């Protein structure tokens, strides 16, 4: 998350895209991590479209709820075991 935040402050669009990917990967570390990513992406990532900030908030909220978890293979890069069950099975 920290590395992604740093990359998102870059002037170069490609580095910002890399930062976005890092933040997305960080979202797989915790079920509510997308809430931490929300202010970072809304505040720092500006695409080359003319979207207003509130449109970006709405888009990322919807996107975050649906795709906040990277696929298990991506999370495997950072943690040492694949998760087989949803967290809700672990702590209902």
């Amino acid at each position, binding site marked *: *998350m*920290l590395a992604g*935040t740093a990359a998102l*402050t870059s002037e170069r669009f490609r580095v910002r895209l890399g930062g976005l990917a890092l933040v997305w990967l960080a979202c797989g570390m*915790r*079920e*509510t*991590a997308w*809430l*931490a*990513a*929300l*202010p*970072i992406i809304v*505040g*720092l990532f500006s695409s080359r479209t003319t979207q207003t900030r509130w449109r970006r908030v709405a888009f990322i909220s919807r996107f975050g709820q649906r795709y906040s978890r990277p696929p298990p293979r991506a999370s495997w890069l950072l943690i040492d075991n694949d998760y087989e069950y949803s967290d*809700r*099975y672990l*702590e*209902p």
Partner: protein
Amino acid sequence: MADVIGTINYAHGPTDTAIMSLLGEVQLAKQTEIQRRASAVYGRERFYAGGEMRFFEPVKTNEQREALYGARRAVVAAYPIAYLRHRMTEMLRVIGFSGPTSWKPVYTSYVEFPTDAEGVQQQARSSRLQQLIAHWVTALASTRVFRPYWYLVLALVLLPVALVQRNRLAAILVASGVSLEAALFFMSFRLDFRANHWLIVSTMLGLVFVLHAHRERRRTHARAALAR
């Protein structure tokens, strides 16, 4: 499990029959004096489904987990005030506001209990460097450095300051930390210091950025005064 036990603990005078109807298919260790037994284990996660005084029978199948998940929804819907009181208690524990006896943010041993080493069939020891670091960290464990609520207070102070300074990066970082911490109100299930790591990191970074901006502003003013 934590939400079911916590909500029952704070519910106002529920009968065993009323609780059993909410729990449905969930298997309890005993079906009498349910609220008293929930209060006895509340806050002691190891006994929720383990040990002699356990509240639930251990959950093994996905059907049993689904039943427990449904029971949680039913109990929360039936006693919403008790649920919020329980969540507030959990939140205060997570941010280290509870008593010093229940707050142990530093773990330096290989396993939590000596008997656990038998289970994993290994007894790892720390290196000399790790021992040195552990010594320092353990010395700080009972200080405010390891009390996340101080960082939360600091973050709530820093956020408006960063906004007034128009310090975008500091404001975003602090907002990110506070946002994740706010989610813990509903999502924390065990006493984990690590749940607060992002709040601590983002707040400290935000503090550095705010102080740096403040210093730069003072320097600019001083230079402008000298130029005049």
